[in-house]
């Protein structure tokens, strides 16, 4: 048995949820919500950053050269089936044996596997679905392959790529709390500690915090999307949505 190195959040039994949430000590300090939340956000950001760096360029290049159909299909299947908790758990002994320490490599890799399929698939399909005529016309005008990929294909795929980013980010944020059960901390600690102490306030409070962070993440991605995606691309998405809506 491996000794668990984390400190338990010490909360007196019987304290109410509202009372717990408004207490300054709940938020500040080494074990406070802000510090734990920052842990979670940092890890999730690292996972998403790495995921995007891996998935978007590779999917874009393969889709552009019309290859990688099999990878895409395989990922669809895999993406639905990755047991994140099991993967992370299995990686713990591996990480320890290699001297990487308890944390956060197993959870990092498990979350990365969770994030890659939506990122890769959305990028890949969006680029493959750019109208053949548009690509043809671009080539016929002497637009180089690089410019074609960046200015035309990726630009047109941007909205769908952002949808992939949003899905992946929300999943990652919502799943990251399992880290607390694998020797780490982060926002999941409250649920874990609540379970350990049979303390409903901690369990419910912790769950609410996780849900709130996931919702915030979704909104944050949308805000970034608005800032990054050019008007001409954004209106296409709105038009598609409007058309779908009118059809039913």
């Amino acid at each position, binding site marked *: 048995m491996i000794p668990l190195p984390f400190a338990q959040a010490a909360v007196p039994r019987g304290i109410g949820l509202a009372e717990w949430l408004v207490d300054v000590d709940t938020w500040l300090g080494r074990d406070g919500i802000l510090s734990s939340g920052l842990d979670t956000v940092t890890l999730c950001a690292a996972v998403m950053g790495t995921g995007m760096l891996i998935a978007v360029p590779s999917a874009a290049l393969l889709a552009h050269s019309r290859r990688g159909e099999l990878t895409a299909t395989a990922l669809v299947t895999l993406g639905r089936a990755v047991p994140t908790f099991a993967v992370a758990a299995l990686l713990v002994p591996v990480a320890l044996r290699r001297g990487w320490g308890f944390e956060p490599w197993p959870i990092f890799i498990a979350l990365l596997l969770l994030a890659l399929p939506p990122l890769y698939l959305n990028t890949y399909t969006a680029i493959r679905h750019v109208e053949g*005529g548009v690509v043809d016309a671009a080539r016929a*005008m*002497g637009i180089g392959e690089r410019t074609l990929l960046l200015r035309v294909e990726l630009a047109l795929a941007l909205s769908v790529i952002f949808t992939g980013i949003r899905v992946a980010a929300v999943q990652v944020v919502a799943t990251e709390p399992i880290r607390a059960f694998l020797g780490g901390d982060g926002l999941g600690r409250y649920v874990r500690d609540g379970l350990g102490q049979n303390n409903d306030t901690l369990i419910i409070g912790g769950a609410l915090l996780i849900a709130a962070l996931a919702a915030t993440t979704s909104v944050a991605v949308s805000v970034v999307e608005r800032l990054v995606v050019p008007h001409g691309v954004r209106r*296409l998405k709105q038009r598609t949505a409007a058309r779908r809506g009118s059809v039913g």
Partner: protein
Amino acid sequence: MTECAIRLLNLTKRFDGEQEPAVSALSLDVPRGRTVALIGPSGCGKTTTLRMINRLVEPTSGRIEIDGEDASARPVAELRRSIGYVIQEVGLFPHQTVSQNIATVPRMLRWDRGRIDERVAELADLLGLETEQLGRYPDELSGGQQQRVGVARALAADPPVLLMDEPFGAVDPIVRTRLQDELLALQERLRKTIVIVTHDIDEAVKVADNVALLNIGGKLEQYAAPDDLLHSPANAFVEQFLGEDREMKRLALKRVGDLPFERGPVLDLGAAPAEARALLGDARSEWLGLTQDERFAGWVPRERVDTAATLDALPRELPAAQVHPGSTLREAMEVIMNSRTSVAVIDDGGRFGGVVTLEQIRSELARRAS
């Protein structure tokens, strides 16, 4: 004069894994400043031929010369920028406004802002696009307008060569006719070297100076001016492709204004009745046409003329069946068929411009255009 801008020499394309070549040993000269139509049944290699000209498809063998220079020796991007290409699907960038679309090639060529704006405005004017439409997105335009933007984009950097792959395939017949007329007017001004692909023989003979008829496998069956093609098809395949009403199609190619002037049984109101009787006798006509101040004034039946003391007092019958110098002989024929006098009067901007008779049309058809 008939210097060739594009020369295809023994051009063959065999796609990987295909048994039969898509294009085989095709040789074709496209004269500078002229329009050549590629036509033939579906899958006969029209698009492939067009794509080989700007190297979207590399030929398996044979050669393409543009302005006497081997196209494969030129850098591909530079070659393509000197050739405007209108693809069948139009392929406008959906995320860019009309003016951004039109400015694509000039932007690549790093023209300065002022010059680009000027050029976009000029092209909008040339193609009949409203200034207000320039800021719109392609999906806010009708099919015909999108086609115009596609042509404007292809013409943006003023390339000497224009390739068009079924540019009017996706629009309704009325818009299609209008776009064809606009292309003719445009070509009148710009004198580009144009290769246009089409399925439609009427379109081909209407817009092209020369028509290349291909068979499956990209085999050239006949290359001729529209009138020659219609008048003397080289073989049974061509004949069948052209259809039953070849002579009627030829009539649609010729204009009333191209006929030699024919005054017909027409006199000024002030002429002597005796002169009129002599004219009607010679012309064996049942009707006398009268003009006043060089304008056509109406028809009088022969029996009235026979007993008249002066011509100007005779009751005249209007309206005369009228055509214009720009009318096609096909239109003229329809007018004649519907006219009691069997003669169509040519209205040349208000003035009497002579007449058209069935006999004139018949002899025009018999005369093989050079």
